[in-house]
């Protein structure tokens, strides 16, 4: 196992296109680091530069203490995990895991030990003498993982490894990967466009956009303290609700008004966001996570009330997603435009009149809210997010939000 250090790494292509721009990133020994971002953000390029498949234009990459800028892929002791796995029908499960080691002329005792260890970790011990045809789809995937594990590499590199699997297998494999990392603690770098994968798997997540590092942090840190509008909108499912609001004062309290709504901002929020009070009388972009809503009848009494009319409900097992329309236009900013461009074409969008925006709230499944109902939401204003309308940067964000 080893740490991986990227120091001011650039990757430029002919014509001056920068796929990766001055990226510094410290992936700790044993850490599960997820590189996430929309298509073209540079995550796969970063992974491939670490693997040695892409040459870097400037900067340095170290695996452990070793500078690997010019080291061929095979000498980096990394395993690219189960892309295009092929299981061989005449070979047993054990041999399917072991053949790469045999190819490298490893002593038999060592091969046997590694295969036994991997089989134990993957729950494949009782299948070692069987042929792949006798295995389920999930077990076959685990054999493919076993082939990478027995190599005992310094790090695993995974480039969208679940993207070719069907939905059910994908969820199962996500869970297996998390368990596997928990047991092996091998440094892992994982590239994905799927922020749900990123948030469920990563010890830390590095959000990239247009080759630029946006923020690195734990999943909770990214959710609670996004450094800019892009991260705020990209991380979290459903996405953060955003609106241009005016900060004002009302009876000595600072308020945010948008459409017909007026939210009082607690003093603790102002205190935690230095400089926010300086926006009084000006516009900010206000963000509220869907999880910071609740049906007022079930919400904390202290939460601020906000009335709305329900358009659509999606009943999930543990919650209801409520889509409603607010009387304010969508935020018009380059960061939100980039997010919109990356949205799945199939994503359901309700028709919205000009000057209005769809918002989403997650409320308890105990709420009996139905489409067409008038509802009063409780809003946890202690978690409000504020962004500068010009730069898109979070207002009053502390530097701890973006760790190296």
């Amino acid at each position, binding site marked *: 196992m080893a740490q991986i250090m990227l120091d001011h790494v650039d990757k430029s*292509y*002919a014509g001056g296109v920068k796929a990766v721009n001055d990226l510094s990133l410290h992936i700790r020994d044993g850490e599960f680091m997820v590189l996430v971002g929309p298509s073209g953000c540079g995550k796969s390029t970063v992974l*491939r530069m670490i*693997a*040695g*498949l*892409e*040459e870097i234009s400037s900067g340095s990459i170290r695996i452990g203490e070793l500078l690997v800028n010019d080291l*061929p*892929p*095979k000498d980096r002791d990394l395993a690219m995990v189960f*892309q*295009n*796995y*092929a*299981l*061989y*029908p*005449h*070979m*047993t499960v054990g*041999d*399917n895991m072991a*053949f*790469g080691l*045999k*190819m490298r*002329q490893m002593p038999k005792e060592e091969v046997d030990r590694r295969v036994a260890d991997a089989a134990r970790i993957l729950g494949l011990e009782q299948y070692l003498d069987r042929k*792949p*045809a006798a295995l389920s789809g999930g077990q076959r995937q685990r054999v493919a993982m076993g082939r990478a594990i027995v190599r005992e590499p310094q790090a695993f590199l995974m480039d969208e490894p679940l*993207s*070719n699997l069907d939905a059910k297998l994908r969820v199962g494999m996500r869970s297996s990967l998390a368990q596997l990392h928990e047991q092996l603690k091998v440094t892992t770098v994982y590239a994905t466009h799927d922020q749900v994968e990123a948030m469920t798997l990563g010890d830390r997540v590095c959000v990239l956009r247009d080759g630029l590092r946006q923020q690195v942090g734990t999943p909770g840190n990214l959710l609670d303290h996004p450094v800019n509008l892009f991260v705020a909108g990209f991380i979290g499912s459903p996405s953060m609700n955003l609106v241009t609001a005016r900060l004002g004062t009302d009876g000595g309290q600072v308020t945010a008004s948008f459409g017909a709504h007026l939210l009082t901002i607690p003093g603790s929020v102002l205190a935690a966001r230095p400089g926010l009070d300086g926006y009084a009388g000006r516009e900010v972009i206000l963000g509220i996570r869907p999880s910071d809503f609740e049906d007022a009848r079930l919400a904390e009494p202290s939460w601020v009330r906000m009335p709305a009319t329900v358009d659509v409900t999606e009943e999930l097992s543990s919650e209801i997603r409520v889509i409603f329309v607010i009387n304010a236009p969508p935020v018009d900013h380059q960061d939100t435009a980039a997010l919109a461009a990356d949205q799945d074409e199939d994503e359901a969008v309700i028709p919205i009149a000009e000057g209005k925006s769809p918002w989403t709230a997650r409320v308890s499944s105990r709420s009996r809210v139905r489409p067409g109902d008038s509802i009063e939401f409780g809003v946890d204003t202690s978690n409000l997010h504020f962004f500068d309308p010009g730069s898109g940067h979070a207002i009053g964000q502390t530097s701890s939000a973006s760790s190296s």
Partner: protein
Amino acid sequence: MFVFSPPADEAAGLLTLPFSEPLEEWQDERLVEVRQRGISRHVVRFIADSGELYALKSISERLARREYRLLRALAELNVPAVEVVGIVVDRWTEADAILVTRFLDYSTTYRALFSTPRGGQPTDSLLDALVELLVRLHLSGFFWGDCSLSNTLFRQDAGTLEAYLVDAETSEQHPALSAGQRAWDVELATERICGELFDLEAGGLLPAGVDPVATADALQPRYEGLWEELNREETLRPEEQRYRIAERLRRLNELGFDADEVELISAPDGTRLHVRTKVAESGQHSRQLFQQAGISADENQARRLLNDIASFRGYLELRDGAGVSETVAAHRWVQEVYEPALAAVPAGLRDRLAPPEIFHEILEHRWYLSEQAGRDVGTTMAAQSYVDTVLPEVPRPLTTTIEGLTGPRGQQELVDEGAAEEA
């Protein structure tokens, strides 16, 4: 929705296939069962329609569109690969797409080649063919990502094999590949080949004397050797420029490649020569044969047949004491030599090899018989002897005959597309 690249008139019959059902559940009379199939990552089935054979693979729409695009790009570059016919998408919500490719005529798999070798083990020719394909891909900026014997089909070409890419699911097209990408592709291929040979060994299908590790390890130096030969820069002294350039170009041709551009760069110690190699197969002899005789053949077959035409022309000129034009000689050769020789092949054996390959083997056999007899036995006698003694021993294709097919392939039995294991 069927997305295809026109014209595809002959594939129109595919539109009546039951695309609204999962591929694995199809019950259509045009389905062809392929024996000795290994495991598949995806469902692959084969269809015989209007005298053509197709492979249908069920994969996600994203992958299908990508593979369709990449296979078309390979076709435009004239890199040997299966021909993509189209994709079927939007079948129903959540349904995978279906990628349709045309089955490669007279092709075979590494498994078939190992299980019924002709004239020694195929190891060397398999590796050479695979290396040449990989180099062509890399020259054109293609990263294969899943190079293996299983993902390749092979065709006999006058004593050598030609390799065709079957699966481009994981391929990527770049303006150019880095050394790291090339090295990684070769490393992946080495591991895959070793796994495939270990697998044959485990199944008792690997001939004695073939070492899986040594065979797989031979790939990398062969690849490096060919890559270096095609891409090396050399420094020439002024007085040797002309012949050294000609020598280099001839060497490229011998390796089956053509020069695209020759760069001469002045340097203090002489002139540096760099030759940019054409990605496409040379095809020079194939084109020439088609122009002269109207016969489609692979490159080595064409070279062999052209030599026979030239020899026949010499014979005519000597016999008649007058010059004979190339065109007339070729025309008469087809009528008096090629067609009669192939006519000696009974219908039941015509599916064994492509006609130019059969003719090439007849010529080989004539040489062998003539050497034994101490005189030229002639093509007619050689053809009859070949049909009686050699052709029946050529391995039969691996599946049952498809009834209802017409044309050359109507007689052909399908080989096991081992590629389908990985396709």
